[in-house]
C-alpha cells in the first residue's frame, strides 16, 4: 500500500509539469498588459515600460518560465503584481476558505445523496422513490448559482437568517463562521447530492438483486444487516468513484459559487487575478487546483481499495 501511494505521488510530477507549462502559456497568450492594468489608463508609456521591467515581463517567454519554475520548486511563487503580497500567503489563505467550502459541500452531497439513493432503492417504484427521484432530477437540472441566488433571496433577503455574502471576520467564533458557510455549501452541494442519489439508487438496486443478498437473507439475517452489510457496501464502490470524479467539478462549481456569495476562496481569487492579469496568482492558484485534483483521484483509488478487496489484492475474480 505504501509503495503504491509513493508511486502514485511520483507520477504526479510529470502531470504537474505539463499543467504548469499549459497554464503558463495560456496566461501569457491572453491579451492585456499587467503593467498597464496595474497603473491605470492615466500612466504614460514610459511608466508602463519601467513597471514591465520591474515585474520581469521583458524577458523572453522560455526564460520567464524557467525563472518561475526554479523559484516555484523552492516554494517561492513570487509576489502579486497587484498587491505585492507574497503569492503563497494570498493563495493559501484563499485555499483554506475553499477547502472549508468544498468539504462542507462534499459532506452535504455525500450524506444526502447516498442516504437518499439508498432510500429510493429500498422503496423502488413507491411514492418515496418517486419523490426522491423527481427532486434529484430537478436539482440536477438547476445550476448551483441559481440555487445560490434562490437561497440568498429566501434566507438572506426575506428571512434575514443568514448573511448573503463574505466569510465573516477572521478569528470569529466557529458558529459565526458556519453561518457564512451554510448557503454556499448547500448551493454547491445540492446538485452533487442529486448526482450521487441517482448513482447510489442504481447501484443499490443492482446490489440488492445480486445472489449474495439472497444468501444473506437465507441466513436469516435481519433486513438492516442485509441492506447495510450486503448491499450498501457493494453499492458504495461505484458511487465513490463517481463522487471522486465529481469532486473535480465541485472545485469548478466553487469558482461560480464563491463569486455569487462573494466568498473569499480560491476560485474567486483566480477569477479576479485573471481580470487583473496577475500572472503569479493565476499560475499558483491553478497549479494548486491541479494538485488538489490529483490528490483527490489518489484518495478515490485508495477508498476503492478499502471497499473492494479484489482491487486491493490486485487479482481479478472469475
Amino acid at each position, binding site marked *: 500500500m505504501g509503495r503504491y501511494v509513493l508511486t502514485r505521488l511520483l507520477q504526479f510530477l510529470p502531470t504537474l509539469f505539463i499543467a504548469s507549462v499549459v497554464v503558463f502559456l495560456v496566461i501569457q497568450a491572453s491579451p492585456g498588459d499587467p503593467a498597464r492594468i496595474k497603473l491605470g489608463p492615466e500612466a504614460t508609456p514610459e511608466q508602463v515600460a519601467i513597471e514591465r521591467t520591474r515585474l520581469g515581463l521583458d524577458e523572453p517567454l522560455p526564460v520567464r518560465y524557467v525563472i518561475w519554475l526554479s523559484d516555484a520548486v523552492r516554494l517561492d511563487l513570487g509576489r502579486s503584481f497587484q498587491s505585492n503580497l507574497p503569492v503563497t500567503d494570498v493563495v493559501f489563505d484563499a485555499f483554506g476558505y475553499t477547502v472549508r467550502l468544498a468539504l462542507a459541500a462534499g459532506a452535504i452531497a455525500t450524506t444526502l445523496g447516498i442516504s437518499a439513493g439508498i432510500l429510493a432503492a429500498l422503496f423502488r417504484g413507491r411514492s418515496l422513490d418517486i419523490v426522491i427521484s423527481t427532486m434529484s432530477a430537478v436539482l440536477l437540472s438547476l445550476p448551483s448559482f441559481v440555487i445560490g441566488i434562490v437561497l440568498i433571496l429566501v434566507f438572506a433577503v426575506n428571512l434575514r437568517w443568514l448573511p448573503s455574502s463574505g466569510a465573516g471576520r477572521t478569528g470569529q467564533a466557529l458558529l459565526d463562521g458556519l453561518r457564512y458557510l451554510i448557503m454556499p455549501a448547500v448551493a454547491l452541494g445540492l446538485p452533487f447530492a442529486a448526482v450521487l442519489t441517482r448513482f447510489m439508487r442504481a447501484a443499490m438496486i443492482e446490489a440488492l438483486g445480486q445472489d449474495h443478498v439472497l444468501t444473506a*437473507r*437465507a441466513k*436469516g439475517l435481519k433486513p438492516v444487516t442485509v441492506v447495510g452489510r*450486503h448491499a450498501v457496501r457493494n453499492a458504495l464502490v461505484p458511487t465513490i468513484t463517481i463522487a471522486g470524479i465529481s469532486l473535480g467539478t465541485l472545485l469548478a462549481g466553487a469558482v461560480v459559487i464563491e463569486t455569487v456569495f462573494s466568498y473569499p476562496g480560491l476560485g474567486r481569487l483566480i477569477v479576479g487575478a485573471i481580470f487583473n492579469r496577475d500572472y503569479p496568482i493565476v499560475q499558483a492558484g491553478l497549479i494548486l487546483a491541479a494538485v488538489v485534483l490529483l490528490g483527490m483521484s489518489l484518495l478515490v483509488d485508495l477508498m476503492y481499495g478499502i471497499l473492494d478487496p*479484489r482491487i486491493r*489484492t490486485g487479482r481479478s475474480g472469475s
Partner: protein
Amino acid sequence: MTPSHPAEAPLLDVRGLSVAFPSPRGDLMAVDRVSLSVGRGETVALVGESGSGKSMSALAIMRLTPPGARMSADWLGLDGADMSKLGEREIRDIRGRRIAMVFQNPMSSLNAVLTIGRQITESLERHMGLHGRIARARAIELLAMVDVPAPGKLVDAYPHQLSGGMRQRAMIAMALAAGPELLIADEPTTALDVTIQAQIMELLGRLQREMRMAVLLITHDLGVVAGVANRVYVMYGGRMFEYGQVDDVFRDPAQPYTIGLLDTVRQLSDESTESLIPIPGQPPGLGPVLVGCAFAPRCRFVVDLCREETPPLRAMGRDRAAACHVAEPRAEPA
C-alpha cells in the same frame, strides 16, 4: 443416508404449495400446488429441468420468493408446525438456523467484499450468539469440517481468492454454521467442474451423516440422484409429476416424462447406442394455469384426455405416485 421411519411425522411437510406471478393475462404459475416431504436425516432429490419450478419451490419453502411473486400453501410444515402462517420475524429465526440453503453459483452467492470468515461469523452471531474470537475459532472449525486446506488462513481470504470448489465448500460451511435440521442444496454442483462435483457430493453426504441432517437436493442431474438420494420427486412445468423411492422410480418409471428423462441418461452410459434420443419439443414457459397435462405436447403416449383434464397424482405402488392418465400402477419388484 437412512430412510425416514414411515411412522414418524416428516421433518418438512409441504402441501399444496403454489407460487404465482400476477400478470394482466392472469396468474402465471411458477409452482402449481406442489406437495413434498422430507423425513429427518433423509436425502430427497427434487428433479426437473430449468423452469420446472424446482428452485422456486425451494425458495418458497424458505419464504424467500422474489418480490411480485405470490406464494400460498395449504400447509408448510416444519416438524409439525405450519411455517406459512409465521410472521417475517419468526421465519427469519428459522432461516439459516433450522433450514439452511446452498446455492448454485458459489461465486455470486458469496459477498465479494467480505472475508469468508466474516460471512460465516455473521451466521454464528445471528443464531448461536457467538461473537469475536469465539465466533472466529468456530468459523475455522467449520471450514476444517468441509475439508478446505489451511482453514486458519482461508478464514481471512476473500471469495475471489478461492477456486470454485473451495468457494462452494465455504458456502456449505456457512450453511452448516447453526447446525440446521434441513439443508436445501439448489444445484450445488452445477457451476463446478465434473471432478469437483463428485467431491462436493461426497462432502455433502458425509456431513449429512455426521450431522444427522436432512437434505433436499435440487438438481437436473439424475446421475447425482441415483448416488445419494433415498427418494426422488420429479417436477415439470411447475407441477409434481412423479415421486417415489429412487430405486423404484429409476428401475421402472411410470410417468412418460420421467421415462424420457431416464432414457437420455441411460443412453449416455450405454455405449452401444449411436445417437441420443431426446425428448421432442420444448418445456413449457411460464404461463397461465394450463388445462390438461403440461407434458402432453411432447408425450409419445398422449391421448385426448391428456389435453382436456389435468392428471392428478395417482398411487403407482408402495410410496410412489405419478400424475398421468396413461400410466398404470407398477408391480412390486420381485
